[in-house]
């Protein structure tokens, strides 16, 4: 049987056969490609055209006029302050800085917390391990739009859970006057070093996103931890390595390849996290917690400036591309550091 099969397999497939393979492959791919071509690729191309026109609400009507060609005006308006006159509190440098800091701070905390808690849950002899794991995964199962709206209420100055909790514990204990910080709208920023401005709302959003983000990191870390061969620890212990040395030499070596891709993925996801900014703080105060995605959405849904929105989306794409390439390079550099 194998003797018969070998010659046909090892022979180079004929041109006809290769064409037939390609045809079959495309038959399988066609439905998916068709949907993506119409819904994603065509709009992408159309986007490039729109970015050079003054497409807005009047061009949307079925018999409306064609938009005018405006050259690079839309792109220029992002940087030269023209957009700031239309969208309140728009400042591209500040928004971009905030967006990058937002994603970076979140991912670092998510990964560190996720790994730390995975380590705690991985301690041998820990009781109720399964119950704790089941509880910790709950935030992941809640739709982000609900997470955002619920946390908005959590930070309400008068009726929110945070302020009520503070007043009910510390406030009662030390007989303090009612604590009524308006977390999401407090106008005085904590960090104010232009272009980096971090209002109190940033820390509110951060709290919500840490709550939302660490559990999945913990799951990924747990998977990696379980792949560490136990005898490596025994060997390290025999060599006289302490807890910290064991963690650095054995645990981290196994964690890094699993956590790095996930951290990069997390960075992109957090960079584009629409729901928290849009629903929790509404971008406030003074647009200081707006992200590129929320601005892009406002340009379409509220301002109806489709031309400028298209230019903004293209700008956003290149920022993302640069960041992804940058983080990938960073990941490669750190991976080869002591591997």
């Amino acid at each position, binding site marked *: 049987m194998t003797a018969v*099969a070998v010659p046909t397999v090892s022979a180079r497939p004929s041109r006809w056969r290769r064409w037939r*393979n*390609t045809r079959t*492959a495309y038959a*399988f*791919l066609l*439905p*998916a*490609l068709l*949907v*993506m071509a119409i*819904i994603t*690729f*065509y*709009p992408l191309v*159309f986007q490039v055209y*729109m970015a050079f026109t003054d*497409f807005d609400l009047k061009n*949307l009507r*079925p018999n409306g006029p064609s938009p005018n060609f405006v050259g690079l005006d839309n792109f220029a308006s992002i940087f030269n302050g023209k957009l700031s006159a239309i969208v309140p509190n728009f400042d591209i440098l500040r928004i971009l800085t905030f967006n990058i800091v937002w994603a970076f701070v979140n991912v670092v905390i998510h990964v560190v917390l996720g790994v730390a808690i995975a380590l*705690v849950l991985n*301690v*041998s*002899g*820990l009781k*109720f391990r399964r119950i*704790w794991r089941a*509880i*910790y*995964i*709950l935030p992941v*199962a*809640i*739709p982000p*739009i*609900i997470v955002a*709206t*619920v946390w*908005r209420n*959590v930070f309400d100055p*008068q*009726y929110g859970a945070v302020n009520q909790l503070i007043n009910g514990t510390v406030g009662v204990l030390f007989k303090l006057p009612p604590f009524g910080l308006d977390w999401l709208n407090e106008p005085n920023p904590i960090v104010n070093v232009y272009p980096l401005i971090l209002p109190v709302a940033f820390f509110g959003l951060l709290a919500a996103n840490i*709550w939302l983000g660490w*559990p999945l990191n913990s799951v*990924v870390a747990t*998977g990696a931890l379980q792949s560490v061969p136990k005898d490596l620890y025994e060997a390290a212990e025999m060599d006289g390595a302490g807890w910290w040395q064991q963690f650095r030499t054995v645990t981290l070596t196994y964690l890094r*390849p699993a956590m790095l891709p996930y951290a990069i*993925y997390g960075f992109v996801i957090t960079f584009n996290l*629409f729901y928290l900014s849009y*629903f929790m703080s509404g971008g406030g105060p003074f647009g200081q917690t707006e992200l590129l995605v929320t601005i*892009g*959405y406002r340009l379409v*849904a509220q301002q109806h400036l*489709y031309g400028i*929105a*298209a230019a903004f*989306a293209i700008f*956003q794409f290149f920022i993302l*591309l640069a960041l*992804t390439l940058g983080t990938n390079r960073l990941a490669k550099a750190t991976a080869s550091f002591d591997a």
Partner: protein
Amino acid sequence: MTAPSIAVARTEPAVRRRLRRGDSMPLGRQLIFQLVCLLIAVTVLFPIVWIVGMSLDPRNISRPDSLIPPGASLDAYAKVIARPTLNPVSFIQLALNSLLLAAAVSLLSVGLGVLGAYAFSRMQFRGRIFLMLGVLTVLMLPAVATIGPLYVSLIRVKLGGIVLGQSLIGVALAVTSSQLPFALWNMKGYLDTIPKELEEAATVDGASRLQTFLRVVLPLCTPVLAVTAFFGFVAGWTEFLMASLFVVADPNQWTLAVALNALVGQYAGSTPWSAFAAFSVLFALPVMLVYLLLQRYIVSGLTVGGVKG
């Protein structure tokens, strides 16, 4: 001393795990670790418990004045099911819209995705690398990035008297398209781990490519199908961006997410928090239940697809 450890090494993984879990820990250390775990659990559960508590508040007041309501009643649920927003649309209608959207996205992304993933994983053809990279590029784009041109284009497309840019059908197509890159790559990653020998055996027995795919490959990748279906379902069930843009003018087509936006948005002042809380619980519950049921699959599907990239 050596004999039992060898025996342990040779036993089934499940037994080994049980033995390892039997490892004892000094009581004091155990207590400290349990305390840490409890503390983490409290922070995780706090917002959930608070919102559930609020949804049971029996007093019908607009804002809660205490963390724990003085009693419990399902009044808020009854009210929110009858008429969640200021529009005369019932919760059932909203949930039905969300459900249809979710089911459509789920079915389409799995069906179209697995076919394409199979071609990417098993076939050599012209343009394979180019197409895979093209799909990957789209994966990086946030869905909101093409929302403008998509809306502008779909508002001009009429299918059987329905303007796509003003209907949930258009939303379903748009969400499916944004789910497809993930579906394709995740399922391709999983298919790559299934040995080819089974299919070759089927081919030798005279099965066609399509038969092999349907009879041999599909049953083997049930876990990843379930995961992709789940993600598609959640994406559809919670979709806000496109839905709010496309169907905001027609309350009969509103989904739960669009209604939630109305609850917390401009009408926020007139919505009692207990109603908002009840709505949130009802909105989140189906997703949470399915997630907890499929958790094992979801986690393994995610890590396989993620690591293989």
